[in-house]
């Protein structure tokens, strides 16, 4: 199978869906670039070149550059989705959600319910998240827990290029508003990605490693850290299952609970801030639903409760990594936590 970068996979998904369905349009700041400028058209393709070439193929009518006006154009995407188009809007960095969240969580997410079921809002919002780019506090956050909290939204977190393509195609074909999170530190990484279009259904986790001792549930880029940890641990004789839920909303509770039940030990890995995040979400779920099967406390590996620091020295300490996951796995294996008498 051909190898493609995360960037290419996303570009390909957009291109194929735009070819398939003319209602699909894309919009965002410099998603092509060069509007009104004397030099090259399609000058950017987004700040990191993800949408490069789409304007050339589909024209400015379907690849819309916008002023810097996130409430305006994200809201326009919502309105267009409610009236017959299938827009894919780019919120450049998810950190910018603070200037346009209303249109996402009060409008798009609630239309269907508030209107008694009579709205369909097939909106996709692509956005960059995550630390590791030395982009500092306002360009490095995860924030998907905030969107996961909101009923009416779906949230996809592809952990590799294969998932990026398949989940983005599903997002575009999906009739509900979807937040699609792209980790900026993965754009250049390559995976095997089929050329033909395919959709990965939402709410179906991938099990990337199978083992008997510990279940690691990891999100987005952290799946790769978890895989790395699992491979290291295998050499040390600890065998891990790694679950990549792919979407946080809907969440594949069944796969998480089944694999957790099999091993009886769970580590949840989330790059997000530690409070009210996916780690707590999954840990609480597991604790409530399969308590009886647990042999050890569910441990959470997350970023600490502080903004993302700029200095590379600090940022490297900030991000969860394979070593921290391994340490957590060893902890749940060690059985230090005694069990209360029945």
């Amino acid at each position: 199978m051909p190898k493609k970068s995360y960037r290419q996979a996303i570009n390909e998904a957009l291109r194929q869906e735009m070819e398939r369905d003319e209602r699909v349009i894309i919009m965002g700041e410099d998603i092509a670039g060069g509007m009104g400028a004397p030099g090259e058209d399609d000058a950017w393709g987004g700040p990191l070149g993800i949408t490069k070439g789409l304007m050339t193929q589909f024209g400015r009518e379907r690849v819309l550059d916008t002023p810097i006006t996130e409430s305006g154009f994200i809201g326009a995407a919502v309105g267009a989705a409610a009236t017959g188009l299938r827009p894919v809007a780019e919120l450049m960095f998810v950190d910018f959600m603070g200037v346009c969240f209303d249109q996402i969580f009060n409008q798009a997410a609630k239309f269907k319910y508030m209107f008694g079921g009579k709205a369909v809002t097939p909106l996709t919002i692509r956005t960059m998240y995550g630390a590791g780019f030395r982009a500092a506090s306002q360009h490095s956050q995860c924030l998907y827990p905030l969107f996961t909290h909101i009923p009416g939204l779906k949230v996809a977190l592809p952990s590799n290029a294969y998932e990026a393509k398949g989940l983005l195609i599903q997002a575009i074909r999906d009739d509900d508003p979807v937040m699609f999170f792209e980790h900026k530190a993965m754009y250049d990484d390559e995976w095997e990605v089929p050329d033909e279009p395919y959709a990965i259904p939402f709410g179906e986790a991938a099990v990337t490693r199978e083992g008997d001792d510990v279940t690691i549930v990891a999100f987005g880029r952290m799946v790769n850290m978890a895989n790395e940890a699992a491979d290291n641990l295998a050499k040390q004789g600890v065998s891990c299952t790694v679950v990549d839920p792919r979407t946080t909303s809907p969440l594949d509770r069944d796969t998480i609970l089944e694999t957790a039940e099999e091993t009886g030990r769970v580590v949840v890995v989330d790059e997000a801030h530690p409070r009210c995040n996916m780690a707590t979400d999954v840990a609480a779920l597991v604790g409530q639903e399969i308590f009886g099967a647990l042999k050890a406390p569910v441990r959470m590996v997350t970023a600490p409760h502080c903004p993302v620091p700029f200095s590379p020295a600090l940022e490297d300490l900030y991000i969860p990594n394979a070593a921290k996951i391994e340490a957590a796995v060893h902890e749940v294996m060690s059985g230090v936590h005694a069990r209360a008498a029945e």
Partner: protein
Amino acid sequence: MQLSRDDLLNAYKRMRLIREFEDALHEEFSAGNIPGFVHLYAGEEASGVGVCMHLDDRDAIASTHRGHGHCIAKGCDERAMMSEIYGRADGLCGGKGGSMHIADLSKGMMGANGIVGGGPPLICGAALSAKQRKTGGVAVAFVGDGASNQGTTFESYNLAKVWNLPAIFVVEDNGYAEATASAWSVSGSQAKRAAGFDIPAIEVDGHDFFAVWEAAREAIERAREGGGPTLIHCRLNRYYGHFEGDAVTYKAPGEVEKVKAEKDCLMLFRQRVTEAGLLDAEALDQADREAKARIDQCLSEAKAAPAPTEAALLTDVYTSAY
């Protein structure tokens, strides 16, 4: 362009129906029969109807928290609206939305909106959709004077202009946002603000149906022909409080009474059409009686309708599998 006798009668009927709807709700709220926040449109009917007369189902409007009038003007079923406001299962939104979220997308009514300034970005999208799909449609946002200060509104002006969208912004300036006068909160003026974006502005007396109708005609024609957005600044008055329960102490004594006596949109309309011999008083009286009867019927049916059952709580959250 000329309004036919039928058009005129229709316009009057719509305005009167809105007035009856709102007056009835005022009574009902005072009697403790309606829960929640209810914002009434009474007094502003000429605006919603004067604009929406030019629109059909391919055209979209986005409304505000004060949405009943826009809904009726855009063709939403008043019977189902009434049930909605009572939280009944047969409400236009199954009772899930209530007064602040009445919508009917099949009529191009994109919803009342609980968020001040929520509508303008949405109609940029509806306008874009119409343009893209070449339906010939336009999209209209109703914007309060208070909402005209919200950043989302300005962003929408600029977006509509640079994308050259068939979008119309109707600023319904009733002089107040809650208890705050627009004389204080709106610096500059609506027309100057539009000029800031090179958007043409039209100022009209919002009590005068014909002035609104003519302004809307011009704006909507321009939009349909690809001429881009227009702002219409409509000065008018609301007759009731900001929401039901508001004691309205911030207005001058007699302020509303004076407007009712001198500029009521239904009264002005009646004068104009009877004096010009376009409609006779009897036809209008008949319309008044019909409107009243219709609202009475809506009310009694809504009150008798059943509430939604538990089964409805978790439906309509998502369209596809979840």
